[in-house]
Every structure is written in C-alpha cells, then in structure tokens.
C-alpha cells in the first residue's frame, strides 16, 4: 500500500510540475507589489500610464500563475496604491527583452533564471523571485516565511541605476550574495 501511495505522489508531481507553498505565494503576491512602489523611480517604469506586473512561469505552472493573478486582483482591485496595473502572464520560453514589464515575478524554474535576470537588469526593473535561491542567479528580491516574514535582496544587483529604493527598505532586508546564501 505504501508503495502505491508513493507512486501516486510521484506521478502527480510529474503530471502537474513544481509544488508551491500556498501561504508563501499569497505573502509574495501581497508584499511584492508594495515593494515595487517603494522604488522612488517607479514613474519611469510605467507603461502607458500603468504598471505592468509580469509573472513568468513554466508551462506547468500556468494555473499557479492564474491563482496569483486572481489573488492580486482580489486584494488590489485594479490599483497599486493609486497606480492602475495590468498583470501580464508570460511563459519562460516567450520572455524576451521586448516583453512589456514594470516588474517581473518569476515562479520556479530550473533553467532560464539567468536569462530573466539579464532581461530585468537590462530593463532596469525589479525581478522578484518565488524561490530565494534564484537570487544567486541574479534576481533582485525574494521573501521567506520564517519566524517572521523576511525579505531577501541580492546585494550585487542593489546598485542598479534605474532602481532607487527608500532607505528604510534597505535597512530591513537581508542581503544575499554569491558567497553568502
């Protein structure tokens, strides 16, 4: 019986892709847009007067991306603190430097993280990561639920000229670099 159950989980896992922490997803969906607004240069990142919050996902994670979209809409009701927004769902394979984005939220992926990080750097926009490990690959922000909510930031990408966070944010985040995980 045990073997049967184990096989079932393996199968489901293979069939439906990566397993996400729902609570973490909701926390990130709730906090990351707010962090985006802590950028003093957010005005420069508006596209046609709107914030375009681009969620990048693997094909298998489409439903998860939809769930996140639904959660954000429910919580923010079309506006991030006065700014109208649009959520743009983009598969990893479709992402290019031409993709419209004011900020990028990257769900889990094994291969294309570096590519996303480069695009974000090039655009000068914030790249939020579901998985904190991906910060080492060049993404800027992530969040973990530990004893309390902890924000992580890639120290190497801090000095992007097009992003200027409020000072207090920098005082409360935990920095990550290549040597320090």
């Amino acid at each position, binding site marked *: 019986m045990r073997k049967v159950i184990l096989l079932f989980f393996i199968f489901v896992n293979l069939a439906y892709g990566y397993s996400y922490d729902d609570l973490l997803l909701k926390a990130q969906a709730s*906090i990351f847009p*707010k962090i985006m607004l802590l950028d*003093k240069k957010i005005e420069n990142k508006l596209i046609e007067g709107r914030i375009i919050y681009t969620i990048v996902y693997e094909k298998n994670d489409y439903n998860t991306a939809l769930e996140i979209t639904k959660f954000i809409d429910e919580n923010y009701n079309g506006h991030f603190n006065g700014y109208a927004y649009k959520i743009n769902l983009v598969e990893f394979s479709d992402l290019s430097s031409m993709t419209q984005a004011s900020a990028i939220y990257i769900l889990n992926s094994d291969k294309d993280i570096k590519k996303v990080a480069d695009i974000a750097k090039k655009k000068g926009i914030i790249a939020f990561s579901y998985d904190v490990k991906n910060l080492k690959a060049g993404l800027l922000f992530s969040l973990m639920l530990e004893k*309390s909510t902890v924000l992580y930031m890639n120290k190497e990408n801090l000095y992007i000229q097009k992003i200027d966070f*409020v000072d*207090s*944010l920098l005082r*409360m985040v935990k920095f990550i670099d290549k040597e320090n995980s």
Partner: protein
Amino acid sequence: MKNKNSNSLSKKIVISIGIVSLLITLVIFSVSEKITKEAFYNVELEKADLIARTIEPLIALNIYLDMPDNIAQLSLQLMENPYILSVKVLDSQNKIISDIKSKEYQKGIEEFFVVEKTINQPNSTKKIGTLALVYSNKGYQELVDKYTNLTLLLLVALVVLFILFGLYVKKLLSPLVKIAASLKYYSPDKKMDIPFLSQNNEIGLISNALNGMQQKISEYSKKQKNINNYLEEKVNEKTLELREQLYIDTLTGLPNRFSMFNDIIETRDGALLIINIDDFKEINDFFGHIAGDNILKKFANRLKNMFKENEYIKLKRLSGDEFALLFVEKPPLEDFIKTAEKLIKDVEKMIFLYKKNEIGIRVTVGGVYQIEKALEKADIALKSAKKQRKSFLLYDEKLNIEEHYKDNMEWVKKLKKAIEQDMIVPYFQPVFDNNSDKIASYECLIRLIESNGNVVSPYLFLTIAKKSRLYSELTKIMIEKSCKHFENIDYDFSVNLSVEDILNNDMVSYIKQKIKTHNVANKIIFEILESEGIENYEEVSLFISEMKEFGCRIAIDDFGSGYSNFEHLLKLNIDYIKIDGTLVKNLDKDVNAQVVVETIVNFAQRLNILTVAEFVHNEAVFMKVKELNINRSQGFFLGMPKEGTDNKFIV
C-alpha cells in the same frame, strides 16, 4: 572693642566685595542653572526624538508591508535602551499595533518625556500610523545632579577664596590699625613715634603725612596755648567788669535792682523802704535830662552820706527816680518808721544847685516791715501813699491792697476778653411818657456777658475800665451797637457819655461818623453827668453845640446829685433833665425831696426842658412823679433793661 572690630575697614571691604560677588554669582548661577537645565532637557528630548525619527521609517515600512511581527520585534529592540520606558505603535485608525512597556514604567514612574511621531507611508506623505515613545528623564536627572554638585563645589571654592581674600586684605590693612592705635593716645604736647615710616607704599605715605602733621600741630598748639592764656586773662577781666556793671548803677554808682534781689535772698529778716522823688519828670522836662541826672547823682551821694554809718542799711537805685533802703537786720518798728519820716524831712530841706538854679525835691516813701515779697509790698505801699497823697505809708496786710490789685487785674483781663469776644452789649430800658403812658424812648445801658452767660452790671467794671484805658473802647462799642439797633426802629434812644469821651477828639469824630452812617441824628440823646459837665464846662458846651447842629438832643444825667449851676445849664441848651435817683427813690415819703424835685421841674418847665424821673421802683413813687408833673418816668416798676426793644409795656 567688639564694636570697633565690627567697624573694621578691611572687614567692610571684604564683606562688601563678598556680598556683591555673592549676588553676582547667585544671579549667574541662577541664570546658568536655568539655561543649563533647559539645555539638558532639550538634549534628552532631542535624544528621544532622534530615536523616534530613526525607528519611524522602519516601523512605517513594516506597517506598509503589513508585517506586525517585525514591528513588535523592532519595539522590543527599542526597549533594550534603558531610557525607553514604553513604545506604542498605532495604525491610521488609532488601533494598537504594538504596545510594549517597561516594568519600571508599569510601576508608575512619574517623570518622563513623551515623544509622538506621525508614521507616514514610505515614499509618500500619507499617514499610516503613530509612534508614541515614553522616554525616561533619568538621564536628565543625572545631568542635573552632576551640574548641581559641580555648582556647589564651585561655591565652596568661591567661599574659601573669599575667606583667603579677606584674610589677605586684613593683613594688607593691618598697619593702618597699628597707626590708629598709636594715634589713640596722641597729645600735641608729647612727640609720638608713628610706625611704618620707612615703608615704600601707601601706608608709608600716610605715616609720613601724619608725622608731618604732628610737627605742625605741635607748633600750632604751642602758639594756641599762649593765645588761650592771654584770652583767659582778658575774659576774666571782662567778666569782673560785666559783673560790676550788672549789679552797679552806672549813673550813681549805687548797687542796682539786681544787687537788691540778691541781697533780699540773703537777708533772713529785714525791712525795706522805697523812695520815689515826686514829680521828677517835671525837673527833667523843665531843666533837661542832664540836670535830672545831675540831681540824681547828688541825691544818691547825700543818701549815701546819710546812711554810711549804718552797716545794716544798704542803699540801692531801683530805677530812674526810685531808690531803696534795704534793712538787712530788722530794726525796731518805731526806729524803722522814724528813719523813714526823718528821711522825708531831710530831703525836703535839700537844695540842689544847677546852673545857678536852686532846685528842691520831695519824696514819697513806701515801706514794708518784713522781707518776704518785700519789693512788691513796698511798691504797693508807695503807690498807695501816692494815691492818698501821703509822704509815707507802711504796708499793712489788713488793707488787703494786694487782693484789691489782683481783683482789678482780673477785671481788666475779663474786660479785654469780653471786648475780643464781642461780649459787651447794650441793654435797653424804656422811658415812658407820663401823659400818654407810652414808651417815649430807650436808655442804652452797657452790660458785660460772662462766658457762663452771667450779665454783669457796669458798676463792677466801669471804674476799672477808666483806669485801664479801655473805657473809650466800651463807649465806641455802645455807640456802634446802639446806633445800629435803632437804625430801623422808630424810637428815640439815649446813650451815656463821660466827660472823658467828650474831651477825646477821636471819640467825637467816631460818634459823628456813626450818627451819619446809621442816620440816627434825630433819634439819639446823649446823657452827660451833671457833676462832670460842670467841671469841664467849656469843652462840654462845645460838644453840645456841635451835636445840636446835627439834630441830636442832650440830657443832663443824675441832676440834683451835685451842686447844680442853673446858669450854666441855661447856656448849655439842653433838652432833658434826668432827676437823680436818690431824690426820686423816696419821693413818695421824703418831703424835702419833693420840694427839691418840684423846684427842678418848675425851673425846667420855664426853660422848655423835659424832666425825667429815674429809679421809679414802685407805684407810689410813680404816682408822686405824675403828681409833680415830671414829664417822663424810668425804672424797674415800669420796665427792666432788656436785650431787645420789644417792650411794649403800657402802664
């Protein structure tokens, strides 16, 4: 000595500087304490504010990102600061997000600061909450305590410094004390060694100056001493001279009145004669003052010779023409009187020669055979002797002369007071017409009202008034008040005038003026005493003529009391005869009086003179008056003298 120490100059200087410095220090300390405490307070407040400002963005971010755990964590971190007593974070709806308090604060500490900070959304001005920080003032108190301790230490140091300064000043000024001590027993006669002469400072200067002064004073003192001795001698000489002048009469060389006072005091039982040269003024007026003085000198010498052998009789000159013989031992009374009488006789025999003129004098002597109040009593005796035209009179207690004098003086005082206080008033007694029985006129009679309201009759004060020269004043008052009273009353009135008044030109002018002023010439009747009128016929006649020209009328008062000269009366052109009261008083019984009165009435009727009977005191007299055809009657039976003239009595 204690007193001198407290007045020490060094102490005063130090105390003055000390007080001034203490006041300045207190002011500076008070001001600086206030400023410092305020600064300390602000520093602590600034610290609390800085903490609040530092933590606010982090709390703001956590509220913004909806991370309450982090807020609590931050609050706890803040509470690690021992000065922070409480951290409270509220959201925009004032709901508590976090509220942490220290144990100390929970116990109810009283002194702290509260810093409230508005929490704004990061990158925006939107208020998303409030941070309330309770900050202990422990740090402030510690600073204040440190400051207070330091201040006290400084004050103690200042006090010590002042004590040392005081001691130093005292030491600096101590030579002055020594110099003062050495000067204490300074005498111009003795050379003194002044200390610190060699010192090369202000003390040395003072010492040298004092030394120089000492030498000058010494020289001056010697000169002054010589002058003083000389002046003392002169003063003694002059004092003797003045003493002699004080007690010696310069004209006659006899001891004077002051000398006699001294001798009377020293005499246990003696007697006194006062000698007055009669009418000496006439000698002065006739022969001149030099002659008078000459006679006085000679008279003094002769008196001196008369009594030079009697050591118990002392001759004195009292005043101008008055000398005294003071018996320092009382002789037998008989001898005393004999001495006085012999003296009078001897003087009468004396002849004084002046520029070929032979001048004789007479003296009046007043004596007293006792030493107590001798001068006053002898003087009274002398005056009485003069009055009685006797050459010698011995003072006699039984005569009560002294009391009489006193009484007279009292009356003079009373009169003066009454005149001053306007208490001399006229009383009005009606005079009735015997045909119509109606009031024909009023006689104005003088009265003195005493302070207790007593009405005093003129018999008590008129004689004294004449002697004391107040009589004319009284007449003027009577004239003024009577004229004024009858100015608007349709009655005749009579006023008594003495010959003294008539002879006084000033009084006559006054009477004329008052008659004019009050327009009473046709109403006024002047009553003149029969006896006085005769003695001064010419003057009285002139006065009557003048008054008649004005329209006034004249009455002869007390007619029949003297030796009436009908011829004179005829010439005087009088209007009324007032028959003397002594004749009227017993007219009903005294046949002689009736005969005299009848004669007077007949005489008056022939001359068209109206007759008035005074002293009509009963009905019988009144009936007799009428029977004898006397025209008018006056007396207590008909009407008493009263203050006003409302007397409408009809017989």
